[in-house]
């Protein structure tokens, strides 16, 4: 190889890397606010990770129902069966449904005011949920109809977010001795919660795992998932 040819290859390498570095930043810009786009892309990424873990670690089969396109909403709400969702099977039987951006009815509401119109503080949005199968459209699942709750944060994981998820844990379950979950391996076989729902918190911030000792006590798993 001649010196000229080597220099040409080096120039191509340099141009390629420089163009690539610029293009990566450019992919995040667009019509929408970056924060909104990033947050929802991260939710999609986490949903794909949850689907993978349910399939590979828990041995479930997953099937998309109601369409070919998956919708993520910018605001949570009740179940809406006009949108596609993911059915989760184990050994041929449906064990739950995976939905995004759904609000659940809190324990405090269900135990004291069920039947009354729920007020703002009586329901809370979750990014991804695994709920009992076959619940009717238009309702919010109640705290004891959730088996898995997932929160996604494509931001710095500040302490206020920890306090927020502790509030979600409280409105889903009471603290108790380790209690068997609906899962045989993943995400956990036992949690210190009754009902024994699992909570996963995904964040792009590596600092999120620093809260795991708190999570171990209350049954919350903190996962660092880069984007």
């Amino acid at each position, binding site marked *: *190889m*001649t010196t000229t*040819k*080597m220099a040409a*290859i*080096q120039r*191509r*390498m*340099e141009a*390629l*890397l*420089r*163009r*690539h*570095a610029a*293009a*990566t930043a*450019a*992919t995040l810009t*667009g*019509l*929408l606010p970056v924060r*909104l*786009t990033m947050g*929802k*892309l*991260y939710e*999609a*990424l986490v*949903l*794909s*990770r949850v*689907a*993978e873990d*349910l*399939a*590979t670690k828990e041995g479930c*089969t*997953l*099937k*998309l*129902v109601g*369409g*070919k*396109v*998956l*919708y*993520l*909403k*910018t*605001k949570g709400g009740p179940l809406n069966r006009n949108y596609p969702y*993911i059915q989760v099977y184990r050994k041929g039987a449906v064990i739950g449904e995976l939905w995004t951006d759904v609000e659940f009815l809190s324990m405090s509401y269900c135990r004291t005011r069920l039947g009354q119109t729920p007020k703002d503080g009586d329901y809370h949005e979750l990014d991804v949920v695994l709920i009992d199968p076959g619940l009717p459209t238009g309702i919010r699942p109640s705290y004891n109809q959730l088996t898995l709750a997932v929160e996604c944060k494509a931001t710095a994981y500040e302490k206020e977010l920890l306090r927020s998820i502790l509030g979600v844990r409280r409105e889903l379950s009471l603290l108790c001795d380790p209690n068997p979950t609906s899962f045989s391996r993943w995400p956990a076989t036992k949690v210190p919660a009754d009902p024994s729902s699992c909570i996963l918190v995904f964040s792009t911030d590596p600092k999120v795992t620093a809260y795991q000792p708190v999570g171990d006590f209350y049954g919350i798993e903190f996962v660092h998932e880069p*984007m």
Partner: protein
Amino acid sequence: MPLSNEESVALLQNARMLTREILGAGVDDELQGEVDPDANGYERLRIYLEALRRRMIAQTRQPGQLAIERLNEYVRSDEGHIESIVLVFTPEETEQFGMAEFPLSTGSGDIEDVSELEELLQLLQHERGNGV
């Protein structure tokens, strides 16, 4: 003239220097971790560039695209695989953005850059085939 061991080492050093400068030392360390230190210069260069190519493919795909690929792999549908992920707006946002929904999986088109790296690898392979 074929690509010699010394030339391969020189190109590898150049590639590493560029990676550190543009993508960061951490990326170089990661790519270098895949290289067998006992291999000859050409083989180390090839493996390094191949690792760089894989990393660039991953980086130039948006998370939405990666998510769809992973969902397609693990979620089976009687009606077909997941085709895209769509962001649905609230009525207020619909008014603000002038549209009710937005696809999150739009391709970036940067993959072409990676094909250039593939060409580069082929060129090096060709040089090696001429005499090393």
